[in-house]
């Protein structure tokens, strides 16, 4: 029974990593850059929802709002955060990454680090260094086996949201016109352009979607571990990057699988081996997997051409 609760902890944490990793992987697949500022967009999403729900609670809803009203207002806040983060993502891309599109990927990487510093410090000046305690979007827990196993609704919501997002993204990139354009751009930007695809707007769209996903990840992450501060996004950002590579960077199911596995390994290592070494164990597993499968779990192996 303990094992099951560790497993569920791991899966729900992993789902958060997976949602972030999906954003990472999409941007990587198309722009071929590691967007280190992605984690900080999560933090921005968290703050937007925090302030929007507080505003809604204090001035729009009455003292005793109905469940429907408060649920709806939360939903509106989440959508607002997605819009804000989406726009932020597009602005960051246009100002900081677009001018460097033809420079090497390392140059963009450093710029992304600069953007990350910028967002963190701007957030500290705007919102203060004091951590905010985020009220989970849903509360309560599910009790199974006569109280032996308890699963919080936040964990369930996270897992469901992650699966839905993964399926939706797979369908979107596989079926829709925009999705096909994205795949074409990731394959060969020059050829895509020749086929009449607007590469610039496709990349902007990718950033918008990736950042909107980051907003959802922010809400879920802050519901799961309720502390929100300017540095909230950086560590999950790195973990999610690891997850994306673990699953095979550029692959949507890979990011999902990588995220979930990362969460499970972390939880099991913390529970049964050592909380001190859980990170080290996690990374050791990652190294072993990459040595056996050098392009990640579901990554495509592209043979080098001479």
């Amino acid at each position, binding site marked *: 029974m303990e094992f099951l609760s560790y497993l569920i902890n791991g899966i729900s944490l992993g789902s958060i990593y997976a949602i972030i990793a999906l954003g990472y992987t999409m941007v990587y697949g198309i722009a071929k850059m590691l967007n280190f500022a992605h984690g900080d967009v999560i933090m921005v999403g968290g703050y937007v929802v925090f302030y929007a729900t507080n505003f809604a609670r204090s001035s729009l809803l009455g003292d005793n709002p109905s469940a429907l009203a408060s649920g709806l207002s939360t939903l509106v806040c989440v959508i607002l955060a997605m819009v804000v983060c989406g726009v932020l993502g597009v602005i960051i891309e246009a100002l900081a990454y677009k001018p460097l599109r033809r*420079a090497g*990927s*390392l140059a963009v990487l450093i710029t992304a680090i600069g953007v990350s510093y910028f967002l*963190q410090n701007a957030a500290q000046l705007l919102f203060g260094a004091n951590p905010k305690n985020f009220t989970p979007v849903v509360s309560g827990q599910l009790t199974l086996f006569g109280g032996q196993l308890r699963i919080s609704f936040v964990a369930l919501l996270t897992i469901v949201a992650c699966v839905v997002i993964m399926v939706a993204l797979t369908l979107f990139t596989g079926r829709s016109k925009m999705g096909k354009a994205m795949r074409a751009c990731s394959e060969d930007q020059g050829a895509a352009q020749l086929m009449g695809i607007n590469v610039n707007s496709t990349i902007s769209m990718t950033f918008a979607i990736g950042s909107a996903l980051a907003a959802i990840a922010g809400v879920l992450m802050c519901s799961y571990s309720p502390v929100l501060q300017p540095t909230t996004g950086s560590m999950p950002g*790195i973990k999610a990057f690891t997850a994306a*590579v673990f699953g095979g960077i550029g692959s949507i199911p890979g990011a999902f699988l990588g995220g979930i596995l990362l969460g499970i390994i972390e939880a099991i290592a913390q529970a049964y081996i050592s909380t*001190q070494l859980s990170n080290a164990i996690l990374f050791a597993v990652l190294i072993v997997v990459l040595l056996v499968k050098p392009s990640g779990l579901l990554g495509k192996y592209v043979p080098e051409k001479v």
Partner: protein
Amino acid sequence: MKQYFKTMKTATKVDYATYAGVVLAFVIVMLCQSMGLLSRSITGMLVPICCYICMSLSLNLTVGVLGELSLGHAGFMSVGAFTGIITSMCLSASVSSELVRIVLSLVVGTIFAAVVGLVVGIPVLRLRGDYLAIVTLAFGEIIKDIINCLLVGWDERGLHIALNFDGTKSIDSLGLSENGIEIIKGAQGASGNDRIATFVVGFVLVMITLIVVLNLVRSRTGRAVMAIRDNRIAAESVGINVTKYKLIAFVTSAALAGAAGALFGLNYSSVSAAQFDFNTSILVLVYVVLGGLGNMWGSIIATVVLYVLPEALRQFSDYRMLVYAIVLILVMLATHNPILRSFFTRLFRREKEDGSAVRAVKGGGSHE
């Protein structure tokens, strides 16, 4: 003599200019210091700047010359720092000369970092691109976590080492005798160390690093490494042993980072493993990319400027790091945007003829 300079290759000229520049900078700093022109802030930054110059030179060997992105370079620095501190503290009773202790600590730090570099390098270098980057990141984090569990003490019976994996041990578990020294206390790191590093040692270390790196790059080995960077398959086809040359570059880079770390460790009375995290690796990577991949004098200048910048921005108080971020983004845009770059090249047309300058501006191209 004049004839000798004329027939010299451009690359060699640049190398000599780099040596001359470093020596000149050292002489100027020493002169200013002896005349009391340097403020406390600057004097205090001299040794860490030397350490970071060595770090960025050594990382440039991996990223610029070998062409592999490493995100765990601070891990080697950490190994060097802690082994250096252990050596220095163990010898504090028996060796009175500080210089001897520094040199021995640096040597030990270098050797241990090289060994770790070899252990890390053998599996890591089989991978490519971002997969390699993530594995170096992973190794950096693993090194950090292991040092976080490390308990080391010294008494007349010798060195006591314990690993605190289950979180229940503390420094008392080592059972040190009365006059024992507690050297590393797990995650709390090493504190109460002797601060024996000096700027002169830092300068010597920078010169040694520079000589090692430049000679390696200009040698047969260096050309083989660069051939692998530019086209691995072509290099392999002409009979270059890819694994061997990659390992040479990687281990040298790790060893030099270990030396830098040892000096760093000897400069502070309190050092913890958390200081050498992912962010430190990234910081050094920023120095390298901004200075230009494969460009050693660029690394040196970028390190000095970027290390001093946050300190120089102290007058902005709360806005300090925000301004730093903006400057970083703007500099990257200015140096790597094609339109701005061609504007600058037209402005300084002569630089274009200089081979290394062109490579400096090309930045990042090798990592794909």
